């Protein structure tokens, strides 16, 4: 069966303004709105479109994390994923361990493609997809803005600093989604009802054979240096004079 694995990470919603705890032990996440990582929504949308074109048969949504991740997996099922896998853990999962878990699932599911977000907007690591590709020993096409499947190959256009780069990759492969890949569909109410009946399997870390390594330890969290609010100028002439005083005009 041609199967696509899609990563669904539960993260603080992108509209929430995150603040550091006064004692520097973390950021305040209590009672904050949680959502699917925006890049993962795009990854899922792409997987669904590939399936709708008849180029894949099944889309499996995967999330790693605490019990609450199942909310985001249900949303993924409502969007159209066929089934979900929840690797349940309260441990800190570093990108390399997340990649190990995905590798184990890619083997188990005989995946044709794994589509992840290019980065999670909480830790902003931008690592997991590339690490999965390395461990799986398969191609990676990161920061994708266009994906075309042609049999056992794919043509992927990537957003790079120079412009747009196109790669041809053999499948199976890892693709990471950038913002302009597509616009995710909205979930309709009947789909939410239907999603409740779709299969959601829970696994523990032992089932995927991964023990978190904790190679990294967060020592403290600080708020960023604040820029002080400057001055308002009344017209272009005043602006140009201000720039001249700073040697910028």
């Amino acid at each position, binding site marked *: 069966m041609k199967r696509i694995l899609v990563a669904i990470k539960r993260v603080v919603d*992108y509209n929430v*303004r*995150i603040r550091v705890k006064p004692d520097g032990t973390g*950021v305040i996440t209590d009672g904050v709105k949680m959502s699917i990582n925006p890049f993962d929504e795009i990854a899922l949308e792409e997987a669904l479109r590939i399936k709708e074109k008849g180029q894949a048969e099944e889309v499996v949504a995967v999330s790693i994390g605490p019990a609450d991740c199942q909310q985001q997996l249900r949303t993924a099922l409502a969007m159209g994923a066929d089934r979900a896998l929840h690797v349940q853990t309260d441990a800190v999962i570093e*990108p*390399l361990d997340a*990649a190990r878990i995905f590798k184990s699932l890619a083997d188990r599911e005989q995946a044709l493609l794994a589509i992840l977000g*290019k980065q999670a*907007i*909480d*830790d*902003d*690591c*931008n*690592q*997991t997809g*590339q*690490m*999965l*590709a*390395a461990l799986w020993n398969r191609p*990676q096409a*990161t*920061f994708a803005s266009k994906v075309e499947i042609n049999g056992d190959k794919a043509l992927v256009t990537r*957003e*790079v*600093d*120079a*412009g*747009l780069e*196109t*790669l*041809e*990759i*053999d499948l199976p*492969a890892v693709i990471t989604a*950038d*913002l*302009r890949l597509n616009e995710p569909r909205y979930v309709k109410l009947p789909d939410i009802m239907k999603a409740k009946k779709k299969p959601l399997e829970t696994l523990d870390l032992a089932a995927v054979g991964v023990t978190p390594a904790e*190679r*990294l330890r*967060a020592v403290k*969290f*600080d*708020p*960023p*240096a604040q*820029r002080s*609010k*400057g*001055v*308002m*100028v009344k017209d*272009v002439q005043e*602006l140009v004079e*201000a*720039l001249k005083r*700073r*040697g*910028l005009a």
Partner: protein
Amino acid sequence: MSKILVIAEHDGSKLNPATAKCVACASAIPGADISVLVLAASAGAVAAQAANIAGVARVLTLENAVFAQALAATIAPAVVGATGDHTHIFGPSTTFGKDLMPRIAALLGAPQISDLMAVESATRFKRPIYAGNAIVTVECAADSKVVATVRVASFEAAGAASAAAPIEALQLSVELPTHTRFVAVTAARSDRPDLQTAARVVSGGRALGSAENFKILYSLADKMGAAVGASRAAVDAGYAANEMQVGQTGKIIAPELYMAFGISGAIQHLTGIKDARTIVAINKDPEAPIFEVADFGLVGDLFQIVPELEKQLGQKA
């Protein structure tokens, strides 16, 4: 002692300025012994430039025809084959480094520090999370190699060396995969300065309304010797090319002067410009959040202000 391997970014003939910034970052590690690794079809010219960066102890080269394109899947095993007893492997946090470094880290079984912005010790570093809304200090296990992408906006490029470092050619010891093939790259050629390293940047948002209207910014930029950037909204709408996007998911820049025209100042945009020396905001909405971070703010219609500015600004300094 820390032995740091910096992976050079280049286009086959010219070293990208991001590499000298990675060297500056590596130099901040106490007792750093720094090597630069150049992978290229023909490494000579780039290696010579790398050898002239202050702080570089040696330049290592790996030559192979396939390195004409910097494909992470092909390069990563070659880098891993060349790491030897290096304790740290650094690359820039450009799309080149972001694509490549995690693949190297995974092959080494090492963790990666993304967007390294400050060095506290050989194992302790600072990096931004949550679109720069928090800075985390991270300690790496001492028994592991450390892979990092260096947030180039946080470092001043290392200067020129007084004497060139020696260049040593390595032999490729591993087989390279063929499952990933380069097809094409489309890059808008421009005579304007590179956005990532420009001293001055003029940037436009959704308010520009069309690609045609963006021309008023190009004209102003050319008068000022500036690069042109854009918000995500402007890029999504097709007013500007993707490589012009500034922000959390675009380029993180630190110019002397950043001028934002018709950009509201969403957190994802601001994270890309926090390190700019001077920020100027032009917006018709006096409540726009961009004014919270601007050194100089001007409320008004950009379509009147841009031409007037162009008229009043002198030639580039």
